[in-house]
């Protein structure tokens, strides 16, 4: 069954306390080489038949992400 992956990330201007917390923990645990962490969401969808790119883009942009604060990366099976 075709799998579609959607990654949702916060817009750069929106602060990300979860990413910040991870970055802080990495520093304390001795990984100073990591200089920035941003945390987003990762969706894996299974689709029946041929995925309809337009429909999936609409799902990703209007339901899976909130366009006020988030951006979307859509990975269709052909990608």
């Amino acid at each position, binding site marked *: 069954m075709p799998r579609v992956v959607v990654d949702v990330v916060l817009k750069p201007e929106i602060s990300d*306390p979860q990413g910040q917390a991870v970055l802080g923990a990495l520093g304390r645990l001795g990984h100073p080489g990591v200089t920035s962490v941003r945390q987003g969401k990762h969706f894996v969808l299974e689709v029946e038949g041929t995925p309809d790119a337009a429909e999936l883009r609409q799902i990703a942009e209007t*339901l899976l992400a909130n366009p006020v604060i988030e951006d979307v990366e859509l990975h269709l099976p052909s990608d």
Partner: protein
Amino acid sequence: MRIGVITFPGSLDDVDAARAVRLAGGEAVALWHADDDLSGVDAVVLPGGFSYGDYLRAGAIAARAPLMRSVVDRAHAGLPVLGICNGFQVLCEAGLLPGALTRNGHLHFRNRDQALLVERADTAWTSAYTTGQRIVVPVKNGEGRYVAAPAELDRLEGEGRVVVRYADGNPNGSSRDIAGVTSADGRVVGLMPHPEHAVEDLTGPSVDGLGFFTSVLSSVVTA
């Protein structure tokens, strides 16, 4: 005066909102998310809770409920709508209010008695207060950090759309201490703190929250 209280799957403070409506002197009408029609109510409250578990994003799935289409349509025509906590999140997700509510800056759920300043005492839900009045009501949320792009925040401030602001400390890292905002016409209000938990001496930190519910009664009368 009939005030609808919508129950979504996962709504929790619907019983509290209905009680607050009754204590204010209104009639609380239970509305179900899957219905289409608002049963002719004069105003609507979207209560707190975790609709759909707050999975995906707080309020995101509830904002797409069938009844929300009617709420959006009627709100554009001036129906007073109050969103409390999860209800505020739903109103933002439904596009009735600007901005978004995100994970608290400290990453914890936070429940405390919170001081607020009322900045707009002329909306449908805040006319019982005076501008600059200080009230104390509970705040309790895990995703209550109000955010919007800086330019959008400037615009909202410029238009006087901030209804209540946190005082004596910001419980969740909200931009510019914003606790609640209104639509341009002052009929739709959303806030993270819970006025419905401050309506009785016995159970609340104060009775400061009752004003939201008495306000709408007079706003409906005069509308």
